[in-house]
């Protein structure tokens, strides 16, 4: 087994385990305890934890700082970086800093548009797009060069991730764009939350037909539906999200105090199914302010204990 980086996620995936990643959104403030509180629930339960980068374009504690806090707790951070807020000079600089501090797994994203957040008046950088960011990190690592061409002393070795949304439009482009991310150098992919299992199966079939699962590790994104309200919100208000009617109905038909339980049950069934889908190398569990439930969910989904590699 040849490893390209020190990433724990890489080790788990290359050893052939069904990987599990989690997520922690940094706080809207400078209290490290707020990070620790959320992250504590995930210690020992996931192979890596995504640390979001000002998601929904709201100012939050920086992803690298929250990543370091998580690292000090024994978690493996998946350092997220969006193209919205920094140009390629700042990006490369942050990547060097992150690697210097021991981060070795990162996720390259476009980022939500500033109009979604609380700084809609901000400049919207996009010097690079997410695919060009993947290429740049790949070049820093494999060629040992900055994008400008100069040599890097001690090039960063990052296990490079990218996101994919199987449900965005146009559907026929979804796998083609995934292929571009893989060609750009993505080692692993984490998908948007999946609720439409049939459409996800179709997507995976197309990806497998193209042989993409042999060139990258695809982790299926899942988020527990906590209530019928949340299911309806996800179904109608979140761009690029696909929640089929029967899923909304299933959660809504449970009595109010049982809806959360039903959501977790549905999620565990999904994970069970996902294990059987060709090309799915693991799951990415985005609990969204429900971090304390993660151990219980993963236990119920038979994802624990995590492999020691």
């Amino acid at each position: 087994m040849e490893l390209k980086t020190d990433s724990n996620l890489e080790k788990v995936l290359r050893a052939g385990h069904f990987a599990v990643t989690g997520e922690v959104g940094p706080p809207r403030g400078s209290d490290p305890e707020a990070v620790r509180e959320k992250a504590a629930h995930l210690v020992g339960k996931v192979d890596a934890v995504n640390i979001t980068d000002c998601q929904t374009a709201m100012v939050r504690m920086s992803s690298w700082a929250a990543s370091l806090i998580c690292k000090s707790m024994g978690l493996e951070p998946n350092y997220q970086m969006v193209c919205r807020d920094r140009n390629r000079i700042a990006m490369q600089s942050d990547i060097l800093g992150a690697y210097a501090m021991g981060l070795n797994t990162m996720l390259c994203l476009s980022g939500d548009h500033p109009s979604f957040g609380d700084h809609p008046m901000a400049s919207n950088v996009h010097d690079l797009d997410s695919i060009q960011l993947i290429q740049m990190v790949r070049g820093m690592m494999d060629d040992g060069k900055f994008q400008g061409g100069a040599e890097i002393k001690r090039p960063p070795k990052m296990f490079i991730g990218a996101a994919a949304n199987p449900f965005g439009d146009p559907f026929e482009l979804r796998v083609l764009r995934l292929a571009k991310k893989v060609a750009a150098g993505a080692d692993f992919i984490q998908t948007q939350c999946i609720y439409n299992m049939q459409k996800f199966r179709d997507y995976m079939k197309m990806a497998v037909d193209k042989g993409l699962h042999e060139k990258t590790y695809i982790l299926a994104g899942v988020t527990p539906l906590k209530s019928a309200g949340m299911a309806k919100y996800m179904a109608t208000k979140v761009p690029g999200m696909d929640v089929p009617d029967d899923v909304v109905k299933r959660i809504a038909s449970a009595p109010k105090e049982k809806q959360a339980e039903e959501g977790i049950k549905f999620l565990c069934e999904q994970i069970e199914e996902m294990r059987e889908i060709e090309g799915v190398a693991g799951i990415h569990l985005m609990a969204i302010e429900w971090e304390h439930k993660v151990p219980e969910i993963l236990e119920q989904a038979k994802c624990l204990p995590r492999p020691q590699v």
Partner: protein
Amino acid sequence: MITAERKPIEEIMEYVKPYKKILLLGCNECVTVCYAGGRKEVGILASALSMAFLKQGQKVEIDELTLERQCDPEYVEELARTIQQYDAVCSMACGCGVQTIAGRYKDKPVYPMVNTKFMGASERQGVWAERCQGCGDCVLAFTGGICPVARCSKRIFNGPCGGSSGGKCEIDPNVDCAWQLIWDRLKALGRTDLYERIMPAKDWRAARDGGPRKIVREDLLA
């Protein structure tokens, strides 16, 4: 063309307030086509200003003039003999016109009457939409003639992002997703192969990021 929208009358009055005699100066090019600062709009603004000041008991003398092209020194020169009689010039041209006046008549105050918006095209009567950001290195050949810089909200070169939904952009259901349009065009052209190639990181030097730009045509220099 360059599109513009007239500024609110309250803002304009703040600029004009200190003066007794102003020249309201239109332009016969883009701002005429987009109904922001041509001869007709000069007339409308002149009447509106006179009335508004009259209501406040103030009298401002306003002369109206529309130049063929306010961004061209040849036409701006026409003001040389008359400009001294005005306390200020109120330009209804785009920012380029305003600056041509400011550059030629160094001691004359000049005020913008319009907000210059974007380089765009008319979609239908009364509707203009952004089409080009003057990035200096056009990629339309690879994107089916649809510009990802001006028309994708994140100027993504390898789109669409995950937010594209039903042909619309994630920022607003009234905004078309540029990458849906690009894809539809590439399909219609039988050139979907163009999509599969990764568009490399852009060299933004050719755009505004490289500093203010200039074109020098040696063959045309007098």
